[in-house]
């Protein structure tokens, strides 16, 4: 071994721009793409064993595009095209376009297929809905017993992952990438928060970028740097069944997935390769330490564990009963806690990239992942919005070994389950809870989890106690594409918020404090935010943090607590992500002077909303809450009940009259109890996330991560009035937005109300439905829901304007308003009415101040309302509430 290291020491350059660790298919793809960008000479790939060392056939080799989201689908599609292209150039890949046949055994699965078929138009994918008989035509082997139908994707195919990996590697070498084998990583050093050197068993290499593509070991490699890079992954056992050669087996047998039986199979070199995703996966290496040698990782096959899948396979494909066994292999697969890939720049260290957690889909993922990581490294941006796959979607808790052990039993099974709306995991729960949690649970809350937080989704008074009379922990379930089981509960909460008073737990929202000694905090925020943050103390500003292309990296509310102190409220899923953005884009001269603190876990947030909320809060505080003293969109620190120092924001994020109270955790239960008690005379009611969501969709409020992403600009979503292009500072994204203002937007955010949709029987919209204008596809819905006031399905989404050649033209108001719209829901089109502005909802309690406020608009006419000014007060001292 000593000789070998000496040999290697000669090979290893002392300097490389990029060091890729891991010679599996992902690492090979990243190396190849860097080579394509002309970075080949600057790239070094190290591998502790041999490149492509995985045993042949420890993956199924499906190159398919049946993915739950646009981003994943596009990455898979790119991978497939790339494999095809390599094949055409004569590299062996094993690629054959045999198509994929997806089977449904129940109505909901069929609905999921129909939804996919609808989306396929938008996503540029070919697919076809099949009757059971047509399924049999594509694959005569299967039994039709219990099959309701299928989805046929003709352009999917199969390949040999081993060969593809070698093809990538060979191409990468040709493009100048240096590859050093038998060289293991020992440490990744950083200075000033950026990667600068790696230490390996064969010596040190100075570098600018490090890419962790180490598959199973990605979590362990993450611990080799300071600070530790958190890559939440857990290895589980995964079986593949190989039969002996079968006579007369059609080499063009499609790749078949019988999701409801949890199994798949394909033809492979004259025999059948089959596998599946069991309900509960079997854990291995519970201490998280995975042996490096191939031999030590070989596990004996666990037939008892595979039994259920084997029986399902034989039921589904009776001819296989007679097939002879060749082998059952047991190889490792790693899963992330949400069963999605993990990519992007590590939040902990700049220029440290991660691509891991490719589940069993290495081939479908690797091409696309190589491309986007290369884009990020060489350009800083890429062609797809990656936030759902970004490594910054996690918190430290997700990397906890015991959490992973608990959660990742469940994660693999999700892979073949129906992608119902608002899906929840059953494991890893009750992890992060606000101080109100016991009280809310006793109040009937049914919970959903977001960033580990247990958040009440709705309240159900039935069956809320267990057999011992204690409040039961219940997880919200929808499990249908039609009218959800919680419809009536949410309806009642919605009405409370509109007509009386609702109380909601907003504690999961991301909360940061920004402060400095001098004026630096204002300088920083002016640079990061597109709105003008230099407003009067006590004001609240809604603003985006734009990227250089003008897209939203973050969408937040800023309250100016004092001259040099701001509090930021952002979506729950921004907790890690927005800190990364801020740190990364903090100008060097401000770095030492501005403090940014994540205070999410220090405050409990209660929102009271509805027409009586002002009277209720007045009873509990000494401060005058009339609009004259405490106008809409302003902030005050109040005493509430016996507590003080409560940060109160006169906004609700849903468009109702109301307040969000940010309460230090130790006072939270007291304040909640007082509000709830005092609210009894107004018949106060708990409201969950689904109710507040319904409110905001009807009011046309956009949320980051759901409607807005890194590719959406404020001009496209009716928020131009929140961008101050004339600010005396060149904030991030300014030039892109100026350019877009000149050229016009290519898509526009609209609200659509479906006509003739019967919410009792028709399938609902759940986001991702295609929108048709005059019969032509123009865009997709983002968030949707039932509008309890309109009594209609309400869809938010984006409308584009394609010409005959498919080029995008600018979208104008006239264009949007002149069309005739339809939305296709699981194969059925519904006529829709379009809105460009937040509508005024009919109400018994007119509140001029809020009615004048439109979250989504295109004119700047109501701008004055946004900042705290004296003429605002005079116009608003006559609202419905103050009269009472």
């Amino acid at each position, binding site marked *: 071994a000593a000789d070998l290291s000496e040999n290697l020491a000669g090979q290893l350059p002392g300097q490389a721009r990029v060091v890729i660790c891991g010679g599996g298919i992902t690492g090979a793809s990243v190396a190849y793409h860097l080579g394509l960008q002309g970075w080949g000479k600057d790239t070094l790939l190290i591998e502790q064993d041999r490149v492509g060392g995985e045993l042949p056939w420890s993956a199924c080799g499906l190159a398919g595009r049946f993915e739950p989201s646009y981003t994943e689908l596009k990455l898979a599609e790119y991978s497939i095209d790339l494999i095809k292209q390599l094949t055409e150039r004569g590299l062996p890949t094993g690629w054959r376009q045999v198509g994929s046949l997806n089977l449904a055994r129940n109505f909901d699965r069929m609905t999921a297929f129909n939804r996919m078929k609808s989306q396929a138009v938008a996503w540029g994918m070919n697919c076809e809905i099949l009757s059971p008989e047509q399924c049999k035509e594509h694959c005569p082997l299967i039994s039709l017993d219990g099959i309701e139908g299928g989805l046929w994707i003709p352009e999917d195919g199969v390949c040999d992952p081993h060969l593809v990996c070698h093809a990538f590697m060979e191409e990468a070498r040709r493009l100048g990438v240096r590859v050093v084998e038998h060289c293991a990583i020992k440490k990744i050093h950083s200075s000033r928060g950026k990667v600068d050197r790696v230490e390996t068993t064969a010596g040190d290499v100075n570098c600018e970028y490090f890419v962790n593509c180490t598959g199973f070991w990605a979590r362990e490699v993450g611990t080799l740097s300071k600070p530790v890079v958190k890559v939440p992954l857990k290895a589980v056992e995964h079986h593949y069944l190989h039969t002996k050669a079968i006579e007369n087996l059609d080499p063009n047998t499609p790749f078949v997935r019988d999701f409801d039986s949890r199994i798949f199979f394909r033809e492979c070199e004259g025999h059948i390769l089959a596998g599946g995703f069991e309900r509960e996966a079997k854990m291995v290496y519970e201490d998280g330490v995975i042996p490096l040698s191939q031999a030590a990782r070989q596990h004996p096959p666990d037939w008892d564990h595979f*039994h259920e899948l*084997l029986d399902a396979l034989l039921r589904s494909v009776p001819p296989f009963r007679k*097939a002879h066994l060749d082998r059952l292999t047991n190889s490792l697969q790693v899963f992330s806690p949400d069963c999605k890939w993990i990519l992007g720049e590590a939040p902990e260290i700049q220029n440290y990239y991660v691509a891991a957690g490719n589940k069993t889909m290495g081939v479908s993922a690797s091409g696309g992942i190589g491309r986007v990581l290369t884009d990020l490294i060489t350009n800083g941006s890429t062609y797809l919005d990656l936030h759902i796959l970004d490594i910054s979607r996690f918190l430290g808790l997700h990397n906890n070994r015991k959490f992973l052990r608990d959660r990742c039993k469940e994660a693999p099974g999700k892979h073949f389950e129906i992608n119902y709306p608002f899906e929840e995991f059953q494991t890893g729960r009750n992890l992060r809870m606000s101080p109100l949690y016991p009280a809310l649970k006793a109040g009937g809350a049914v919970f959903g989890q977001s960033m580990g937080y247990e958040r009440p989704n709705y309240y159900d008074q039935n069956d809320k106690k267990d057999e*011992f009379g204690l409040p039961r922990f219940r997880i919200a379930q929808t499990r249908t594409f039609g009218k959800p089981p919680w419809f009536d509960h949410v309806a009642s909460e919605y009405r409370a918020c509109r007509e009386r008073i609702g109380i909601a737990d907003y504690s999961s929202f991301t909360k940061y404090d920004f402060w400095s000694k001098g004026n630096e905090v204002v300088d920083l925020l002016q640079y990061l935010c597109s709105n003008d943050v230099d407003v009067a103390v006590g004001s609240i500003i809604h603003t985006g943090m734009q990227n250089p292309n003008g897209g939203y990296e973050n969408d937040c509310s800023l309250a100016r607590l004092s001259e040099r102190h701001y509090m930021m409220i952002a979506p729950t899923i921004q907790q890690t992500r927005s800190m990364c953005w801020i740190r990364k884009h903090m100008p060097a001269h401000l770095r030492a002077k501005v403090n940014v603190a994540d205070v999410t876990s220090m405050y409990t947030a209660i929102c009271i909303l509805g027409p009586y909320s002002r009277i209720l809060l007045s009873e509990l505080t000494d401060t005058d809450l009339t609009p004259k003293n405490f106008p809409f969109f302003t902030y005050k620190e109040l005493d509430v009940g016996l507590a003080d120092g409560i940060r109160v924001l006169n906004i609700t994020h849903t468009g109702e009259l109301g307040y969000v109270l940010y309460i230090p955790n130790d006072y939270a239960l007291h304040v909640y109890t007082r509000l709830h008690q005092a609210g009894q005379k107004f018949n106060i009611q708990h409201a969950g996330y689904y109710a507040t969501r319904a409110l905001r969709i009807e009011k046309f409020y956009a949320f980051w991560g759901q409607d807005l992403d890194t590719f959406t600009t404020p001009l496209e979503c009716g928020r131009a009035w929140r961008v101050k292009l004339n600010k005396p500072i060149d904030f991030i994204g300014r030039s892109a937005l100026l350019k877009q203002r000149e050229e016009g937007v290519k898509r526009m955010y609209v609200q659509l109300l479906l006509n003739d949709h019967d919410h009792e029987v028709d399938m609902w919209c759940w986001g991702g439905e295609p929108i048709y204008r005059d019969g032509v596809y123009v865009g997709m819905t983002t968030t949707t829901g039932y509008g309890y006031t309109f009594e209609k399905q309400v869809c938010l989404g984006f409308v584009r304007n394609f010409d005959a050649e498919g080029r995008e033209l600018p979208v104008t108001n006239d264009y949007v308003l002149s069309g005739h719209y339809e939305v296709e829901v699981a194969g059925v089109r519904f006529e829709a009415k379009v809105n460009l502005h937040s509508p005024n909802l009919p109400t018994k309690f007119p509140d001029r101040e809020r009615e004048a406020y439109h979250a989504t608009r295109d004119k700047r006419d109501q701008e004055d309302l946004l900042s705290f000014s004296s003429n605002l007060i005079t116009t608003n001292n006559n609202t419905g509430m103050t009269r009472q």
Partner: protein
Amino acid sequence: RLLPQLPQLSPYDVNLVLRENEFVYNFPLEGVIRSYETNQLGSNSPCEDSRTEASLLYRPNGFVCGIFDGHGGAACGQVVSKRLLRYISAATLPRQVLREQMEQPGGCTSQSFLKCHNDNVDFVNEIKPIYEHSFQKYIKELIEMPERDVASELKDAFLKLDESLSNEALTSNDPRTMNVALSGAVACLVHLEGLQLHVASTGDCGAVLGTLDPKTNQWIPKKLNQEHNVDNMQEVKRILSEHPKGERDTVIRNGRLLSQLAPLRAFGDFRYKWSLDIMKKQVLPLVGDHGMPPHYYTPPYLTAQPEVQHHELSVGDKFLVIASDGLWDFLSPSDVVSLVGEHINSKKILEPMRIPEGDITLNQISEQLAERKAGLTRKPVDQNAATHLIRHALGATDYGIEHSKISYYLTLPKDVVRLYRDDITITVIYFNSEHIAELRNEYHPPTLSEPDSPLAA
């Protein structure tokens, strides 16, 4: 029941608590041990039990593991659990190898001779050199000594470690070493090399071997140690004989040594070992006059000397369970052996299904699997045998496991929980019968006086 109003845990929550400290280690290479499973359920806060397992380096197939039940604080147990294995790893090396290692450039450290599994903590920096110094002194002494049989080496290692604890407390200025010396720990340690199994035990932990009788197919428990507590008459007689007749009524009182200490042998606890002079000069000023045990006339009253039992593994020996007294309070050795035995049977996972050579159709496999499944009386809730034992200890009733009983034990308030259950720590070691059979056929069983057997070569 005294406390009727306890919150009820859901089965999911119970599982989370019971499984929190689960650990499984599968030995990658062919060896006498196939795997081991451990688990721990604390009662004291912090838990006063510790456990360590390690493979011996330079001794192929050498394995040591131990369970340590601390009292009067967790310090002594934690320290002994780490250090004892290191002392033993050096003591059981052939002297020649030890000498060679010491002559290597850089010498050797206390961790040179073993590899611990699932060990994530180390001593703080101020303490490490003190311990390292004691270790170096110990191996220097070892080299001068002639090689002895394993049992003697184990006894000597126990006593030498205890001596180190005493010296460190009296000579170093770090108050932490005194803290360690004033708390105590009992230990049960297993040393295995080839077929030779030694169990060295000090105090009231227990080890029991599960053997399957090939004729009757019954599980037979074999106790591999004697607890050192007042139920052990031999032990009581030994102590009484070591002190003047006049102390007969005070040496053991209320079932405790000097009416204070339940185990009759232990590491640390130097308040029962040091001379009156040391106590007055160095201990009482620190802890006050109540630190002196009543009727303390002719110390030492306590020793760390273990009793060592030897057992040569045979093909029928399937597993060994070592556990702290927290388990034995609930279950007898024969209960434990039959529970683990049943667990093996019902799990069948330790004997993975074998596919016969030659052609077999998938349908035949499916039928075989169905048969196996029907044969499984009941799939155990827990994969881990140690968890299985804890679940039975807490929840067993005449009608099977009762969930509410477990929940009751787990939700007892902190201030009373110790009265109902002690810390429980269990390690179950599974033997590889095939490998044992191979060894027995190929080699003549080595004798005790020949520690350097061909097995290790």
